[in-house]
């Protein structure tokens, strides 16, 4: 399996990251190396193996459906890089 610079650029957009040319070269190098290494797993036949998502046999831990206090709006907005006191503010999504 070959991983190209173009693939890496595409993944960077999916991951919401942005690299300059030099970083892109280095990232491609490193990812090719690591992907090659993890390919080691293809040596194993896992046809009848059930995937394991989790180390515990706990399923659907449900809480009682009772209201309890939650963060106030003020607390929730306190760490926001930009807010107007009511909402989180982000750059225009639909154009000016």
């Amino acid at each position, binding site marked *: 399996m070959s991983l190209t610079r173009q693939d890496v650029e595409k993944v960077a957009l999916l991951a919401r990251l942005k690299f300059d040319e030099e970083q892109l070269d280095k990232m491609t190098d490193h990812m090719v190396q690591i992907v090659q290494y*993890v390919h080691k797993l293809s040596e194993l036949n896992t046809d009848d193996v059930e995937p394991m998502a*989790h180390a515990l046999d706990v399923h659907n831990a449900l809480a009682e459906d009772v209201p309890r206090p939650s963060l106030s709006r003020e607390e929730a907005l306190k*760490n926001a*890089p930009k807010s107007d006191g009511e909402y989180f503010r982000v750059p225009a999504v639909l154009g000016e």
Partner: protein
Amino acid sequence: MSIIQKSATEQLALLQSGEITSAELTQAYLERINAVDTSVGAFLRVESETALAQAVKIDRKRKAGESLGKLAGLPVAIKDILCTINTPTTCGSRMLENFAPPYNATVVENLLAADAVILGRTNMDEFAMGSSTENSAYHPTYNPWDTSRIPGGSSGGAAACVSADMAPLSVGTDTGGSIRQPAALCGCVGLKPTYGRVSRYGLIAFASSLDQIGPLAKTVEDAALLMEVLAGYDPLDSTSVNIPVPAYSESVGKPLENLTLGVVEHHFGEGIDPEIESAVKQAIAIYESLGASIKNIELPHADYGIATYYIIAPCEASSNLARYDGAHYGYRADQAEVLAELAEDGSDEGPLVRMYRKTRSQGFGAEVQRRIMLGTYALSEGYYDAFYLKAQKVRRLIRKDYDQAFEQVDMIIGPVTANPAFAKGEKASDPMAMYLEDLYTVTANLAGVAGISLPCGFTENGLPIGLQLQAAPFQEEKLLRAAQMFQNATDFHTRRPEIS
């Protein structure tokens, strides 16, 4: 022996008998930090004022005869990954430089309820990704035994502060070895509990199916003492398990009879430093002399541990770290810069997407971005089955290996790392070499079993060597007792570094 050189258990007895006060003890640690942390860099922030105020409060409670918690008056250092209300919690990242969580992690609540004194926040690899603490966005941490070397990671600050007598107890986290490896390289005791034993509520997530919080300390009894406070069921963490917490600190001194230890032949030979091999084999011989029987066992899929881990952990990380979007909390790239860049390269991706991208590329360090990229790639369309699903299947095989091993033996004994602490910068530009540092530790996280690292020797150059014991899920009590047996028969844990 000065007060800070004593174990936490001894200090607690002196606090209880009134021979020392928590204010004196806390002050002694603050002075020690002041004297040596410029050489070690274990702390990101020392909270002198709140620590002293808390110590005075506990002293007053004690004097008034009020009931006190299990750690009453003992200073504890906390890895900077555990949310503490209205207090900076950075996770070693620029992304969270100005983040002050609106709530406490459950373990922080537990520590406060136990009347511990929180000394400060320890340094770490950014978002716990790394094995050397060189990935901290703030400054590196140096190994107290040789300050030209790394302390291990990601809980490098947590291990170094204990080893250098800057804190008697410290709390770390372990996703692939991040407690056990630095404990081994710094010559202290570090326990990675079973997945589900300690609440992860308020632990800033890296790989949620692997992360666990655990204690680091100078002695096994001290680790048992802290573990008793950290462990427990928490309804706020749906993966927390509701089984009672044993009184680890009371049972730790009882030796185990008819102990059977498993040795994996594969752990030795090629790739392991001969001095480590010999120290670990000597440790096995010591257990034999204490009455344990030794049995050769196989973990046939252990060799696939690193490959499995470096798919699963980045996949979970890429998903967990999607929350850092520059909108809700944390760093955001400068708006004018974002717009100028967009205008310059004429891209049609729009100001919001570019804000996300610039924010994340400026806020995260190189290793964190590498793992997000790997995870995003492995989870992307067309690759999911080949990577993530495959890794989850191999994870099952690794777990089965452990289940089969624990039918034959009580614990598995072996090395923590293949090499002693390496030089600063040695592996910084080679991610694969750094990843292989976790060779002996990642499988415990993948399988969800418990593991402990304890001092078992020194190299000729005076660098600490760690011994790893691993036990079946929720067997921490036995693990601590077995570790204590070794500690009683040896004196490696009593040596302390001369900090230059």
